[in-house]
């Protein structure tokens, strides 16, 4: 979208600060990097999403896309290099060492900083997870470069080859585009599920560059005494759910949330909620969808009794199909939902549960 001059005038920094020409030393920084978050035998899916996005940036710049993997020499990590290539990387920097077994700020910062200083990428992307935000903040400070958090859009400015990183601002009501001036690499974090998951291409091949790690455990001050995994049943796996049924303040009472769970049960869906529902304690905080909750992009999002405030919308409007149930025909959610039913959620939800049950039964019989 293009902005009007009035919006341009909103820019809080003079446009003159947009450096036209990079220092010669910085112009030598080439390539797009994605930090691949590897922990306890698994890669966080946000890393694959970022490789998909990084691919586009690298193509626009006509440079290589690299994945950076840090972790213990556990045998599995090599396989993830291959996967990174399938998801779009041209090469993979691999740093393996027992010290890197579980994430700790200091050794990870030191190795990633070292890699950047040695190979000089122009862009470095990380997931905006608890790990990515912790690491990005330290690495950007060590490198004394710019970092833009929680971006929702990344693009290359054709004029100066710089990264234009767009993120929500002012409580989500506006977006702003941030550029990094005369500093490299340009760093950004992106939340899980904001970018689409690319399709892996098994035919792709790439190189692996192993980076030796010269760290010793004795020099790492912070020790991990224990790791307590989340109870997988209690922790809603919202960001990756295919179908989500969400309720808002319009559900009126905690007991009425049963209707949401019943519909979710029939659909094999996860349950989500808007912030007032979490604040009222009707469901746990891990189910909050929106700017200060989770970003989701299911195939189907059913919102009952949710008005569609911008802070909720930014967390769910990438869903393939949005169905809204609201008794107010003028509720903002009808401005971006695909289908709407104007009516009382307390009667529509049980009817939907029944209609889906019947439809699925018919399909089974036919089948």
């Amino acid at each position, binding site marked *: 979208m293009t*902005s009007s001059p009035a919006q341009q005038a909103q820019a809080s920094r003079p446009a003159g600060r947009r450096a036209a020409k990079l220092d010669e030393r910085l112009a030598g920084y080439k390539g797009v990097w994605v930090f691949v978050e590897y922990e306890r035998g698994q890669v966080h899916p946000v890393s694959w999403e970022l490789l998909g996005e990084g691919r586009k940036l690298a193509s626009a710049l006509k440079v290589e896309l690299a994945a950076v993997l840090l972790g213990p020499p556990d045998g599995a990590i090599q396989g993830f290099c291959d996967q990174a290539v399938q998801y779009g990387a041209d090469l993979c920097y691999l740093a393996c060492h027992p010290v890197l077994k579980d994430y700790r700020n200091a050794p990870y910062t030191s190795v990633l900083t070292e890699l950047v200083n040695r190979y000089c990428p122009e862009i470095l992307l990380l997931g905006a997870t*608890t790990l990515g935000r912790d690491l990005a903040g330290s690495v950007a*400070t060590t490198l004394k470069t710019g*970092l833009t958090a929680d971006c929702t859009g990344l693009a290359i400015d054709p004029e100066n080859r710089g990264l234009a990183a767009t993120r929500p601002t*002012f409580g989500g009501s506006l977006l*702003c*585009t941030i*550029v990094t001036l005369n500093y490299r690499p340009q760093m950004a974090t992106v939340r899980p599920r904001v970018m689409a998951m690319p399709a892996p291409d098994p035919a792709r091949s790439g190189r692996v560059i192993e980076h030796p790690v010269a760290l010793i455990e004795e020099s790492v001050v912070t020790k991990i005494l224990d790791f307590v995994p989340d109870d997988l049943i209690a922790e809603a796996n919202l960001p990756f759910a295919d179908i989500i049924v969400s309720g808002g303040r319009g559900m009126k009472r905690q007991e009425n949330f049963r209707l949401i769970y019943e519909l979710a049960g029939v659909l094999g869906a996860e349950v989500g909620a808007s912030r007032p529902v979490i604040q009222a304690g009707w469901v746990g905080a891990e189910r909050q969808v929106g700017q200060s909750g989770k970003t989701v992009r299911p195939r189907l999002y059913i919102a009952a009794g949710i008005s569609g405030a911008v802070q909720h919308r930014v967390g769910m409007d990438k869903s*393939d199909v949005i169905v809204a149930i609201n008794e107010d025909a003028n509720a903002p959610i009808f401005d971006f939902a695909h289908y709407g039913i104007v009516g009382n959620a307390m009667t529509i939800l049980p009817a939907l549960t029944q209609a889906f049950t019947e*439809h699925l039964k018919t399909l089974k019989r036919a089948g």
Partner: protein
Amino acid sequence: MHILVCIKQVPDSAQIRVHPVTNTIMRQGVPAIVNPYDLYALEEALRLKDRYRGRVTALCMGPPQAEVALRKALAFGADEAILLTDRAFAGADTLATSYALSAAIRQVHRSLPIDLVFAGKQTIDGDTAQVGPGIATRLDMQLLTYVSKIVSLDLAAREIVVHRRSEGGVQVLKTRLPALVTVLEGINEMRFASLTDMFRAERHPLTIWNKDDARIEDATKVGLKGSPTAVSKVFAPTPTNRRAEIIETHGGQPIDLAATLVAKLFSSRPDVAFAINPSLTPDRRSL
């Protein structure tokens, strides 16, 4: 024990409105509050002070009006409050902010050594969660982010054990002091300020520092000049031209509305139908 808590004064973003026609931010009348996440940090520091005794210093970088935020911290029980304010700081991004704050923290440390620095998880205006890690890195302190519980603090051994929220679980971490802790929301419940503390807060002299007081030597590293990032534009989200297709039926009975919607979803959105019922293989879907 000496804990320094970083608090920021922020506009109450719940009350920010965007002008519907000009897309500009209407700031008038929007109250300034202490960043809600920082109150958890302050309360956690005060709880440690209740247990181990010692001092809590609140530090805020901002315009002169940010004094209000520090008075609030004093009213809750902070012993000292420092306002870091200088026109040179204007327009700072997170790198420049962490530079100025860490210089001030170093200066505080010179007169009374600091064991812990506390910060909020993030601010509600900047929303970056970068300033905490930035300060820790600059001061070469151990960094503990997203802390959901302080398990133990051993001042003699100079060790702290915390629970740190991470992806898929909680890390139990032990580290050495001094450390920087960013505190997760919900870790505690803020106390009420007592009347005595409120009166004390009103009379308590604030320490006001400019960049020289904080011994910031390199003025090119603060404010706009010291910020690698710049906002190139601010704009409103693209309005979707979409308007929901409202399901209507004769009589408008819930069950008829529901059945119409379900039929529509299954007939016109094969992807959704597939998600609901994976046995609908692509072949059968085309039947």
